[in-house]
């Protein structure tokens, strides 16, 4: 029963990454044009009924990296030198096939130096349901989001 979902609905995450060239090119663009192009793209996803979630990320300078090569892990302020590409934002779309996800990804208004990595989002059904940690994770999600929900009211 659970697998019938896969016949018509899958979630894909479109992960936006940019290298130095892409970030430099972005800074040369007219901000209003960028916003308008992205707005039109988002609207096309909404109007097609496929947009499930999406966020853009603030400058990497405001973030940091936790590196687990060492114990305890090492925390480095962003943007960190080793990064060849920065993760700038994402969309999650609900589609009927990998090809449909590809078609949507190709329509994204991005330019040289940027790319989208497209990954299928695991459904709860993809995991063994009797695993206690899977069950606990579901519980944590509920509690965390319950707190967020309560805070936003």
């Amino acid at each position: 029963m659970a697998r019938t979902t896969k016949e018509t609905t899958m979630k894909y995450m479109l992960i936006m990454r940019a290298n130095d060239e892409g970030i430099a090119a972005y800074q040369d663009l007219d901000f209003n044009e960028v916003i308008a192009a992205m707005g039109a793209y988002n609207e096309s996803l909404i109007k097609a009924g496929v947009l499930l979630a999406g966020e853009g990320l603030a400058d990497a300078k405001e973030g940091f990296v936790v590196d687990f090569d060492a114990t305890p892990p090492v925390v480095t302020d962003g943007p960190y030198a080793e990064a060849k590409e920065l993760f700038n934002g994402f969309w999650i779309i609900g589609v009927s096939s990998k090809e449909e996800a590809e078609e949507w990804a190709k329509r994204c208004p991005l330019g040289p130096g940027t790319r989208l990595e497209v990954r299928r989002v695991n459904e709860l059904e993809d995991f063994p349901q009797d695993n206690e940690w899977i069950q606990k994770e579901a519980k944590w999600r509920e509690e965390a989001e319950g707190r967020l929900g309560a805070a936003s009211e």
Partner: protein
Amino acid sequence: MSPDASGAVVPADPADVDRARRALAAVWRIESARIVATLTRFVGDVGQAEDLAQEAMLEALHQWPTEGVPRNGGAWLTAVAKRRAIDGWRRRERLDERYAAMARDLEEEQRAASGTFWDPDTIDDDVLRLVFVACHPVLSREAQIALTLRIVGGLSSEEIARAFLVPVATIQQRIVRAKKTLAAANVPFEVPEPQDYAARLGSVLSVLYLIFNEGYLPASGEQWVRPDVSAEALRLARVVAGLMPREPEAQSLVALMEFHASRFSTRVARDGTPIPLDQQDRTRWDRGQIERGRAALARADRIGRGRAAYGLQAAIAECHAVAPAVEDTDWPRIVVLYEALGRIAPSPVVELNRAVAVAMATGPASALRLVDELERNGRLAGYPGLPAVRGELLARLGRTSEARGELETAARLTGNERERAALLAKAAGLPR
């Protein structure tokens, strides 16, 4: 296959054929409503438009494997379909000035097709017209459902047949007949006049909700939940809500579907037995979906025209969706929402649901009085939900032998095998 430079036919590589077929399916899913809407505007008849689009699909299957997938597949399909329309007129010797002009426009369009294709000022209106035509009152409800899935959702007859567990030929006949009915009635490609608008909108929304419920609550058959049908209905409801952002009921329907769909994975046990709301594992309800539902309901409320039937049902579903447990549910609020719903959309099923909420809010005795009243007026005769609820209330009041009889009656009445088994198990589990 297509001829190469020397004129010999070169068979396409099966891998290319497969890739092209998949790409075509993806383009079709995204663009079909816009393609058919554009073609309907061009030829004036939705049935013919859809046939032309299907012919263009066949041509794509033929050409794309060897010539490559075009950059703008939707534009390609539309242009091919328009050319076919013109060829048809030519064959019937109707290529007068008007059609000649169209042919010229088409050439222009094809040159421009690499860039932005759809005219943003008209395409949404045309798709909305298509939605209203598919749900036109000259069509039977079954025809409206099939045609909506076909021309708005872009589903094939095979997919629709699978969704509704009926033979493919049945769906094909329904669609052919629906197209003929629309043509015979000369249904205009228009959004309804203001005096008809509310009723026509109601019809569109109820078609979408029926499709959703087909997956959520199949009245018969083995399977309890068929989420693929519901997912398609939800997608179409989002499309329609996007086309009419000022209609609170369209937004509310999206909210209602999101809330219901958030519980899909918990509504049945592994063996297929239905799990009632109070026993579902709420940690597995889809939180993202619930948040989308709440956002849609908030959009509906912001329009500021109050809540109508879908808005109230969505608000009820929201109460359940946000409650951490059955006992934490705001049952008094649900009772009030059902009372409001009963006033604007009176129905014995709403009354029965109100009784269930009353049982939770104030106890089974007062709820049983409501259910007994429903039983006396006979409007739910033959409905398995009535004895099922009555049996549950009697059980809670300790009247177990009466409860057993009611649950067994409910089991006899239901057409769903899994539900029958669950009711009989409950009856058998009552103390003797």
